[in-house]
């Protein structure tokens, strides 16, 4: 059965949502989502450290969507579902500890051919210890390389480093060319 994006989005935004977005991604969209996120977080009683973590991870997650979504080339005034990305920030209350857990969830389409590399990369990062992540981060920071997409190759590792948690992901079959890739970062 083919993946139903709208249904997936509805299911994931039923509860606990602070910020959610489904649509195409641009520099302006990222700016306005970050403004909204700052607004929402400022009204809450979150310590500065957690607030900064959430903001940082959101910036990086959104810019990963901007740089790494694969969408078909189509005329500007036409829209295709594959152009859409998802960004969700959730706050889940933990009654026992009287604290909150935060989750950033993203989704974007990628070419089927990129699935394996991406999966291996995340599995590798999840496998590494905190110290190993730190060392790898510094190595990539200092390698003088920028990808053709303008990324520094640090986006995914930064999510692991800052959150201190493993990344949870899923690949949903969309059609013969595209996969919908979802990522969940616990903060």
């Amino acid at each position, binding site marked *: 059965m083919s993946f139903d994006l709208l249904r997936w989005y509805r299911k994931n935004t039923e509860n606990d949502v602070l910020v959610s977005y489904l649509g195409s991604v641009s520099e302006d969209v990222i700016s306005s989502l970050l403004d909204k996120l700052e607004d929402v977080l400022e009204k809450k009683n979150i310590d500065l450290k957690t607030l*900064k973590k959430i903001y940082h991870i959101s*910036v990086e997650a959104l810019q990963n969507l901007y740089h790494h979504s694969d969408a078909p080339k189509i005329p500007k005034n036409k829209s295709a579902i594959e152009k859409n990305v998802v960004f969700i920030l959730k706050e889940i209350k933990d009654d026992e500890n009287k604290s909150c857990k935060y989750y950033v969830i993203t989704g974007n389409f990628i070419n089927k051919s990129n699935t394996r590399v991406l999966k291996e990369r995340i599995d590798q990062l999840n496998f590494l210890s905190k110290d190993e992540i730190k060392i790898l981060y510094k190595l990539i*920071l200092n390698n003088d390389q920028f990808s053709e997409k*303008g990324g520094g190759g*640090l986006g995914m590792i930064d999510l692991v480093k800052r959150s201190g948690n493993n990344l949870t992901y899923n690949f949903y079959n969309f059609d013969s060319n595209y996969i919908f890739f979802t990522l969940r970062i616990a903060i």
Partner: protein
Amino acid sequence: MESIRIEKTRKTPDVTFNADTGKIQIEGKSIPENSIEFYKPLVDWLEEYGKNPQENTEVNIKLEYFNTSSSKCILDVFKKLETIYKNGNNVVINWYYEEDDEDMLEAGEDYQSILKIPFKMIEMEE
């Protein structure tokens, strides 16, 4: 040589590179999608400045947030400063971070360990 003065925007920091005083400051957020476009002129300026620098160059970095693509560009800025330092000039990088912002302190320490140039970590109280 001309100085650089750039006002901050939602995604880029306030920048002052003063060729006459040797004071260099980057302050605010640095989270542009295309950070190379923003930092290339700064790196080029330092290349030029390095040919005839002031006796003392003081660098103040007061970043609230920066994204990973900026982090590589900031390293490029620092590498230019390192060259100036290695050529026998006084250069110091003051890395400011907000109280309790361990991630920002750690980011400064990462740069410090990569570069051979005097670094000062300065905690700002709220």
